[in-house]
């Protein structure tokens, strides 16, 4: 789709970015004892006291709890990383997750080779970045501020890279700054027509979604009349092209509506608002902080935070002048995070699921020559699984929860799990041998059960006897040939298929 930029001869004033920096920490205290009520155990009884508690969880984590934390905050973790989290304790582990570390040059250079192919480029960071929590949050914001690369072509494809860098840069920063960047982000300006909204024929698209999707939620506070008024505040922004790789947002003053706007008239004084004023007046409404608080709680913990919990989080968010990091810290260390209401209550998205499994298996992408083809197939599978990154189905992003369970989408997840690169420090192909019982013992009869237990253990699954029996049948090929009697070169394939089947266990898809 093409778009028109109104550069012409108007005076171009570069938009100023106001950076609000206020790093106050929320003062959460309160010792929660580790109330280890049956992780991965029974059904959801719906609404325990822990499930609504933001009080701090005990510092000592069990191995299952440490794995749960890593699945929610870092997609997944190897058995060794889980053990490290147990050793560190909750507070230190969360601080470690929040600390942004330099990405090794190997991955930066590899990722850069993919230029504007965001699914592949991002996949390298999702699999390899030492900052998985930052990537996890970038995925969260990408879904909330859903924007697609399908509206840009040719040289404009680079605008998708600028957008992608922006959301990854801002993912744990200041929400006000984030909204300011987002509103004038070139891809967003094209995607929601912000760059095509002159005062004489304003375009409502951005104004509507700014409230409905980005800041307040559907039908909260605003009327259709408010949307028409707020649209005026966003008028006059457009894009100036200066080079092949860049497009700079500018104010085209002649096309900005400078009249007085009556926006949310019962709450807000009429005034000549521009887009910065719109962001400020929106954040002044307590509903805005609550919207973010609820969304982040739901993303990290479970679907049903109480109003009290949401209000508590929202107030801290306002007090910190909209810093995202303190809220994330508080959520990850809360009792609610580890409550039986939370554990296992979420369906992972296809990307989160597959990235989580591969991180658990210690799988890595080394070099374009050997891995580029597999990376390509992996990203294609994930597209077929319903999640083509930076190409969401619509402005509202992906529909989550049970909507992920479209048959073909599940089937494509299974296909994605067959895209194997190299495992562990020895870069073995086919299997993570360093995590499995040594192959010298694969001719022993008992090895079958041990392999099944080992693989289940990576995912912290407690298998029933029936499940274990079925999985052993996979290794034994339905009783055609016992696994331990197979030729050594025949064995890996069956272990590999076993891992894949266990990786789509309903308790691995959920987290």
């Amino acid at each position, binding site marked *: 789709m093409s*778009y028109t930029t109104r550069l012409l001869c108007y005076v171009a004033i570069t938009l100023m970015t106001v950076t609000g920096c206020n790093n106050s920490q929320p003062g959460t205290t309160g010792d929660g004892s580790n109330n280890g009520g049956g992780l991965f155990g029974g059904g959801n009884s719906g609404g325990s006291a822990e499930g609504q508690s933001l009080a701090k969880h005990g510092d000592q984590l069990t191995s299952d709890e440490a794995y749960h934390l890593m699945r929610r905050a870092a997609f997944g973790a190897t058995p060794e990383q889980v053990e490290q989290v147990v050793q560190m304790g909750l507070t230190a582990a969360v601080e470690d997750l929040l600390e942004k570390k330099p990405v090794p040059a190997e991955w930066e250079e590899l990722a850069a080779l993919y230029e504007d192919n965001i699914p592949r480029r991002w996949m390298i960071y999702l699999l390899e970045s030492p900052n998985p929590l930052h990537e996890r949050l970038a995925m969260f914001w990408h879904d909330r501020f859903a924007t697609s690369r399908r509206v840009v072509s040719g040289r404009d494809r680079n605008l998708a890279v600028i957008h992608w860098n922006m959301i990854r840069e801002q993912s744990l920063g200041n929400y006000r700054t984030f909204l300011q960047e987002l509103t004038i982000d070139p891809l967003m300006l094209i995607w929601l*027509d912000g760059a*095509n909204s002159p005062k004489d*024929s304003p375009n409502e698209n951005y104004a509507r979604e700014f409230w409905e999707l980005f800041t307040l939620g*559907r039908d909260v506070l605003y009327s259709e009349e408010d949307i028409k008024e707020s649209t005026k505040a966003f008028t006059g922004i457009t894009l100036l092209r200066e080079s092949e790789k860049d497009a700079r947002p500018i104010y085209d003053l002649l096309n900005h509506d400078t009249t007085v706007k009556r926006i949310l008239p019962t709450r807000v004084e009429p005034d000549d608002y521009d887009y910065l004023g719109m962001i400020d007046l929106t954040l002044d409404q307590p509903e805005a902080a609550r919207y973010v608080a609820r969304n982040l709680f739901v993303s990290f913990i479970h679907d049903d935070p109480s109003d009290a919990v949401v209000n508590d989080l929202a107030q801290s968010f306002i007090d910190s002048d909209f810093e995202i990091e303190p809220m994330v810290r508080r959520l990850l260390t809360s009792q609610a995070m580890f409550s039986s209401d939370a554990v296992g209550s979420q369906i992972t998205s296809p990307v989160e699921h597959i990235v989580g499994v591969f991180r658990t298996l210690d799988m890595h992408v080394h070099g374009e020559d050997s891995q580029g083809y597999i990376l390509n197939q992996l990203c294609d599978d994930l597209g077929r699984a319903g999640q083509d990154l930076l190409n969401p189905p619509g*402005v509202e992003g992906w529909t989550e929860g049970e909507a992920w369970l479209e048959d073909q989408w*599940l089937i494509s997840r299974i296909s994605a799990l067959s895209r194997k690169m190299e495992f562990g420090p020895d870069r073995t192909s086919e299997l993570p041998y360093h995590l499995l019982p040594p192959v010298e013992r694969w001719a022993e009869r008992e090895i079958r059960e041990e392999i099944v237990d080992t693989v289940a253990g990576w995912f912290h699954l407690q298998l029933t006897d029936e499940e274990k029996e079925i999985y052993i049948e996979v290794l034994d090929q*339905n009783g055609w040939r016992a696994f331990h009697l197979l030729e050594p070169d025949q064995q890996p394939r069956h272990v590999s298929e076993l891992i894949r089947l266990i990786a789509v266990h*309903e308790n691995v898809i959920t987290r």
Partner: protein
Amino acid sequence: MKGCVEWHKMNRRSFIAKTGMGVGAMALTDPLLQTVANTYGQSAAGSGDLLVLCQLNGGFDVLSFLAPFKNSVYQSKRPVLALSQDDLTVLPDNSDYGINNLFPVFNDLYAAGELAIIQQVGYPEANGSHFESQEVFEYGVRNLNGTVPGKWYERLRKTYFDEPFGVLDTRSIGDPSRYGYPDRTYHGAVQDAFARLSLEKQGTNAIRQAIIDAYSRINVRGAEIRERTAEFESTGEERGEFYRAAQLAAAGLGTQIIKLSYGGFDTHGSQDQANLDLFPKINNHFAQFVADLKAMGMWERTCVCFYSEFGRRNEENGSPGTDHGHGGHMILAGPRVNGGLHGQAVSTADLNEKSLPYYVDFRAVFASCIQNWLGFDPKPVFELNGETYDSNIGSSLFV
């Protein structure tokens, strides 16, 4: 090919025989086959005809489809986007309107009396959100409250024809040749394990159970969908959602409803350019579908229903595009629809509004499809949770 009812029953019988034979001695005890046999036994008698639901996501600009091109308000509100007589084919029975020439197959069907356009359809208290409005169309109720058990066509299936293939969604099935567990072991060991796990297990909470249910669905339907669609040959080269719908229709699985969707209709900007790609795509994909079903002798028993979550504004914006509106048209295509214009013709008064109003409730159109095409009573599907709607259309949609 003879009528679909006979064709449908024959396939059901051969289906059971075939799967039974395939598994040999296990057949009688295998709980999976029991499940299939039981569900197939429960089918209620309807017409056995096929209803295809084509959802146009984003808000279809119906004034770019059926244009009141002589109307001066239409022309003045859309200086860039209004269609002129050169852009359209005037309706043979109403010279005030014409169908966009980017939709030749719709023009042909209209001329043949096989296209019914129900004008200005919507629902009370229209919502301008894509998401909410799509939900209203998919669930068939205005007040969702999270208590409605499934989309309306799924509720219909559960009420009248609770079969695994009764309703197929092309998005969910995807490429039928890839449907099922992608096993790479010898002797189908993983496939069997997947089947046993999906049948013998219970999830420890509702969402885990939903995953197991999905696996069970994939398992029960997998082989049939792969095998029955393998032989399909299209009359053309298009490979969109309508191609998949034709594959599934050809599979002879007793399917009553095929759901598909196309996106890209949210044309806030550069609408004229966007439509140059979008409209021919829909037209060509659909034209091939019609040709495919005719080639298989199935068009006679088919009705395709096009709809969108809302129409767009009457006035264009400066982008040039159109923002979210309210009322839109629904389109029925098929040899036994009552061809022509239905509902309320777009008047000058309607065009003077910001958006087209609605005169016909969309549920009335779906209800007519259920009652007069599929042969079921729509009451239990749309009248739940105290919901009411005006079922009056003013004319019959089927002959």
